[in-house]
């Protein structure tokens, strides 16, 4: 015999209560101070009355009732294994892996999966142990190993579809670790899922030991038609003081059936602003371009929505847009420039929309303070107007955050004022026509201009041939970003105030080199302009299960969070408030749901609200399945598993034993019976006393 709550046995001290009542018969009432009890204590009558127990049966009845009540609350149970004969035979332990990735929300798959899981629980014997593991990208235990099947059953009923993708690996690993600790010889993993191909790469390296079976229960999606919005792209153009944005949604038909008259709608700040009807072929894609809309500096929340199909999560795509994503580039060419001197540059900058470069080309005589207004980047293409008021205007422009690229070509002339702006000085052009052409020999890949070329097969900068260049002498060797193979400077940088100045010691057209004819030309020019224009690619949306560094997000927007003062709070799409606490700059917010998260800083002087669009990972939308038996075989290492029928003596947990025996109920009933008898007896006694 043991007790689940042995500390409650201390309550047996409560027995002293009826004993004291009987023995002392303490009178209630006032306390009278008396000089001495010397004589009162000698009076024999009082002491006799105090020590007498007047009714032994009543006294014993009360004591017994109290004992039974305390024993009942201490939750007794028998530990003797012979009393657990029921556990000797047929015991097994199963782990039910229930897929709750968002593809399970397709049609009635989730209801089917819940029913299948509950059916598994129903088939368990009274001594079988069951564990529920809910999994999507990660796995978590929904109900621990227990013979209390009702709690597992309830946990299945409580579970909901998540917003993440399927990954079988973590779930199988968790099931393995649970069953490896089991003392049962019959152990089984029941995997209930829609068995998406994307959930199993084959590299998971999960292997069950001998004796653990894996039984897959595939949830059949008879109608697997599904259209997904995979992404939304934005094209930006300047529009007055704001920007005009065209949203383009990309849709994929995942099924083998044609889809016709699919309604695609664009919502901005909760209002539907445009709709289109489209047709998509089987396994085809479509792009829907909506009419442009205007965005200002405030964040605009948008959602592209398609008419409901069976899988709801991928029928919508959330994003946030705001202005400030255009890079304005001014190209300044010499007065006597040829017509095509800036042709490659202009065309290269006209391509692409991340970001959109707004270019304007002027001759150097038109350069003045007004023209520089609102520009992000100025490219001095083969000209160097650093003297006079224009020079001052350029220095001011760079000092206040502008970017300047000086391209040193044929017609550029050295003036002493140029040393105030450029990172060094240049000399007369060197022609290499007589000898071998030059190539780029050293490139600082750690610099933002070149970091995209760092990875293998991401552009060969050394493929361009340079026939002529300007010798450039830097004042600081560390300012060199690229050198030619002969060691002369190709690209150098200088920082003035908040802006950057880059010097390219050759041309950006096809006269002195063939860089403009190489594939790396366009990304190289774009990188130059992005770096000089301080362009940061906006994150229009995030993906579920992503961890977000809140502090760095605010830092990117120019706000410094002070934890302890600002106390940022995130409001999830479900409406739940998630306080974000931290003491340093690395505090993460887990994005668990699809929709819009809002982050507020209620403690800050000015609350800077930040909206985050979160979309479910679209890889889950591909409902293609894998063969469940194939997965089972690769995990267990055998095609057919044997049912092992050995007898197992399983030491159950005290909680289980107590719950099954439920001795407390009998004790409580007995206590109530005794208390009733006590009431009757004491009533009779008091009536007799009258």
């Amino acid at each position, binding site marked *: 015999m043991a007790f689940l709550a042995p500390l409650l046995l201390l309550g047996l001290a409560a027995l002293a209560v009826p004993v004291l009542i009987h023995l002392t018969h303490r009178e209630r*009432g006032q306390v009278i*101070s008396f000089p001495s009890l010397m004589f009162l204590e000698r*009076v024999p009558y*009082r002491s006799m009355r105090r020590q007498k127990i007047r009714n032994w049966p009543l006294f014993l009845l009360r004591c017994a009732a109290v004992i039974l009540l305390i024993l009942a609350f201490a939750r007794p149970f028998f530990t003797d294994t012979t009393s657990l004969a029921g556990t000797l035979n047929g015991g097994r332990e199963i782990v039910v892996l229930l897929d709750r990735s968002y593809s399970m929300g397709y049609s009635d798959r989730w209801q089917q999966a819940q029913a299948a899981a509950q059916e598994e629980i129903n088939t368990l014997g009274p001594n079988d142990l069951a564990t529920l593991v809910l999994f999507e990208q990660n796995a978590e235990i929904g109900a621990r190993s227990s013979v209390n099947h009702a709690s597992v059953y309830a946990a299945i009923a409580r579970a909901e579809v998540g917003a993440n993708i399927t990954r079988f690996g973590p779930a199988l690993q968790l099931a393995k670790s649970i069953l490896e600790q089991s003392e049962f010889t019959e152990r089984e993993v029941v995997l209930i899922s829609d068995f998406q191909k994307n959930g199993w790469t084959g590299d998971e390296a999960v292997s069950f030991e001998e004796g653990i079976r894996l039984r897959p229960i595939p949830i059949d999606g008879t109608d697997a038609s599904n259209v997904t919005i995979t992404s939304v792209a934005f094209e930006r153009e300047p529009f007055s003081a704001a920007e005009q944005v065209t949203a383009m949604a990309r849709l994929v038909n995942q099924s083998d059936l044609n889809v016709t008259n699919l309604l695609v709608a664009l919502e901005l700040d909760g209002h539907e602003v445009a709709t289109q009807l489209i047709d998509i072929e089987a396994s085809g894609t479509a792009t829907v371009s909506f009419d442009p809309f205007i965005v200002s500096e405030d964040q605009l929340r948008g959602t592209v929505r398609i008419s409901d199909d069976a899988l709801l999560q991928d029928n919508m795509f959330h994003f946030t847009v705001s202005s400030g994503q255009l890079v304005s580039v001014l190209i300044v060419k010499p007065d006597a420039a040829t017509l095509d001197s800036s042709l490659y540059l202009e065309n290269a900058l006209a391509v692409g929309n991340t970001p959109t470069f707004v270019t304007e080309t002027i001759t150097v005589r038109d350069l003045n303070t007004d023209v520089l207004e609102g520009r992000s980047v100025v490219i001095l293409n083969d000209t160097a107007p650093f003297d006079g008021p224009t020079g001052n205007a350029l220095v001011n422009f760079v000092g206040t955050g502008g970017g300047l690229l000086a391209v040193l070509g044929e017609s550029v002339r050295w003036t002493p004022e140029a040393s105030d702006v450029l990172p060094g000085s240049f000399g007369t052009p060197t022609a290499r026509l007589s000898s071998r052409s030059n190539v780029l020999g050293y490139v600082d890949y750690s610099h933002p201009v070149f970091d995209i070329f760092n990875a293998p097969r991401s552009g060969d900068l050394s493929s361009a041939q340079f026939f002529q260049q300007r010798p450039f002498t830097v004042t600081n060797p560390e300012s060199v970003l690229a050198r030619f193979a002969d060691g002369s400077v190709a690209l150098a940088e200088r920082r003035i105030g908040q802006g950057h100045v880059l010097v390219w010691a050759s041309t950006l057209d096809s006269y002195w080199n063939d860089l403009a004819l190489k594939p790396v030309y366009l990304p190289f020019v774009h990188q130059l302009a992005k770096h000089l224009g301080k362009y940061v690619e906006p994150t229009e949306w995030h993906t579920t299960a992503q961890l977000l560094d809140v502090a760095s997000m605010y830092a990117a927007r120019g706000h410094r969070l002070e934890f302890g003062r600002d106390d940022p709070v995130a409001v999830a799409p479900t409406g739940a408030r998630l306080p974000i606490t931290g003491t340093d700059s690395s505090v993460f917010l887990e994005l668990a749901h699809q929709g819009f998260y809002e982050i507020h800083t209620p403690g800050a002087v000015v609350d800077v609200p930040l909206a985050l669009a979160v979309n479910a990972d679209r890889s889950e939308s591909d409902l293609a399945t894998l063969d469940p038996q194939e997965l089972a075989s690769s995990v267990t290492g055998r095609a057919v598993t044997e049912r092992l029928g050995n007898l197992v003596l399983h030491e159950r947990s005290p909680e289980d034993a107590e719950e099954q025996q439920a001795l407390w109920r009998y004790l409580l009933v007995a206590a109530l019976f005794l208390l009733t008898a006590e009431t009757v007896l004491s009533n009779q006694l008091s009536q007799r006393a009258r």
Partner: protein
Amino acid sequence: MATQRHTLIPGASFVDPKVLARIGNLELLARILVDGFINGIHKASSLGVSVDFAEHRGYMPGDDIRRIDWRLYARTDRYYVKEFEADSNANFSVILDVSKSMGFSSGGLSKLDYAKFLAASLTYLANQQRDRVGIVTFDSEIIERVPPSAKHLDVVFHTIDRAIAGRPGLFGDPLFRMTEFFKRRGILALISDFYEEPDIILSAVKQFRAQGHDVMVFHVLDPAELEFPYDTASSFEDMESGERIPIVPENLREQYKKLIEEHTLALAKSFTEQQIDYAVFNTSTPIDYALFAFLSARERMARVR
């Protein structure tokens, strides 16, 4: 009983003119021989100068020839010296029990206040007789001690005024210690409620008697202690030990009264055998009346002796 008045000597307020008027014409005489220095009203332990003839004795060289009884010489032709009994002043000390139980009061004066009146009145009376006055207060220990002196009336009154019933009391040890204080034979007035076994009380008080002191014992009791007038069943708490017992008073009133009467009778018998004057003072009895009765009885007894 008179209310306390503010006077220059704090303890003097315990001396009530009404009491003094009543007992003023009485004398607090020592019933035994006491030691003194000056002429007083008590009989001294040595022979001295007074009007009371004591005896004749043979003349010894060195005796004052003025004390030779010439008439006897004329009759017997021998020198005899005439001896007279000496009168003396006495040491009068009050031994006041200030144990916590003395603070009990069932409505009027507490026992301690009554005892203070008693002590102050006796001290005043003694001082008027040119006796040296002193006081000792005690509970389980000796708390304060004022040695007897003719000039100590104020100090004694101060001590009486300061006395408070604070701690549990004990007979025996403190009284045994006091025997060291009273080397010179004198008059001792012991005032207490005597919640102790008679044997222990007697063995303690007997020490004073053995030293030759004239001991008066005043047993001060509240009427509630004598009559036990409580009706409702209550918890009774011992003032000194804090012990509580539930009591139904009506069931044990008679037994209690019997026990306390036996106690006083046992004390009276024991003290009388030791030639100690003993009196029970009920605090509901006016002190002038009680003291008058006691002193006049004592005077009568002195005459008998």
